[in-house]
């Protein structure tokens, strides 16, 4: 009987905690968030800057060059720093997207012409970004940025091959495709 009471208490506490966490999750702290315009810069210059950073971060050229020139300890420290910067970059991207999504929810909640179907689509896009960035974060933390990039490239090639096989096997008769690309 004691075990039952313990299980019962555990269930009540777990449900109470989940309600509490849900309540905390929804609090929008505007101060901690970027403004909507600054959240995700669309200027080409910023994008080129990001490309430069990521090109160097995820490339293995620097590490290969340094491997022959400096001590093993320094190479290890270089890799650690690079991993830390890459993780910081992914974290920052996740924060930006979280802020964008929070702003979106805060703004649309008062809009009378909100469409539930479109909201589900936005949520799906957000979740797919979260899954993708979470996976990338894990890969970088475990394998380092250059190996993670290699793994991403390999999986992209594999996915493209798989897609080609599927396309050949099942020819699309009248596909309905919705394409939204960043301008």
């Amino acid at each position, binding site marked *: 009987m004691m075990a039952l009471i313990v299980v019962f208490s555990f269930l009540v506490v777990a449900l109470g905690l989940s309600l509490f966490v849900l309540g905390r999750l929804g609090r929008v702290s505007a101060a901690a968030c970027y403004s909507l315009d600054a959240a995700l810069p669309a200027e080409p210059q910023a994008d080129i800057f990001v490309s430069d950073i990521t090109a160097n971060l995820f490339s293995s050229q620097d590490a290969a060059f340094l491997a022959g020139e400096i001590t093993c300890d320094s190479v290890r420290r270089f890799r650690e720093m690079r991993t830390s910067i890459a993780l910081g970059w992914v974290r920052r991207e996740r924060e930006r997207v979280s802020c964008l999504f929070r702003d979106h929810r805060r703004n649309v909640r*008062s809009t009378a012409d*909100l469409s539930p179907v479109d909201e589900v689509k936005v949520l799906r*896009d957000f979740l797919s970004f979260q899954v993708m960035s979470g996976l990338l974060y894990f890969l970088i933390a475990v394998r380092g940025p250059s190996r993670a990039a290699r793994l991403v490239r390999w999986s992209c090639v594999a996915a493209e091959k798989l897609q080609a096989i599927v396309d050949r096997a099942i020819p699309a008769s009248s596909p309905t495709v919705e394409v939204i690309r960043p301008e």
Partner: protein
Amino acid sequence: MTFVPIWIIGLIGESVPPVRAFQKDFIGQYKWFYSYLMSVLARDACLFTVYFARPKSYPTLYWRTEFIGVVLGCGLVWEAYKIALASYPGSARMARSLLALVFIFTFGRFLVKNWSAASWTRVRTALDLELDLRVVQVALLFALVALFAYYAIPLGKNLKGIVYGYGLFLVTSLVNLTLRGQLGDSFQRVWQYMQPGCYMLVLAIWTWSLWSYRPVPKPKVQPELELHYAAFMRATRVKLLAARDRLARGTRI
């Protein structure tokens, strides 16, 4: 006879929030909640009398009047939805779709379970029926709370207390009823103390949160955000896809 003091404390606890709301003149702000609480108070007072005057009639009366609380509880959930989302038409629209979906799903499950050919002739106990209806209520309330959290809807101290208190009450009822149904009479002894214990906690939450009138905060209206929804939604999606694209391009360079 140790449950008699618990019973009396319960009756006092149930009468405190309505008396306080009547004193402070905000009883009309939460009509369904106070109707629910006063009906429970009347029922408990009635059961208390019957228990000593005509003990044999007590179980029948207990299960028959239990459904009044279940029905008024639905009204309480509806009131929470109406009050919290009055200033948020967008979220209210989403809530209607979500609640309709949850209701169809849970109530459909309830109908299928009860009207299936195998159990058509089976006499269902009041306990089973109440358990099923509580599942519907829990699902609806949980969906509503999740939506409040998702859209960061401020509830105010009063409504937060009502919603969380009732949520706790539903969950503990559900667990109690499930254990009572699974374990039968062996659980009865524990149930006699566990159910009032949980209910005392719920009453304490309600008394604390409804001690004075704290309405739902009004949203700050920002005219520049009066935008065209479709364009705004499209902009968000484009930015989300751009972020995903940047992440992919960054690692593929």
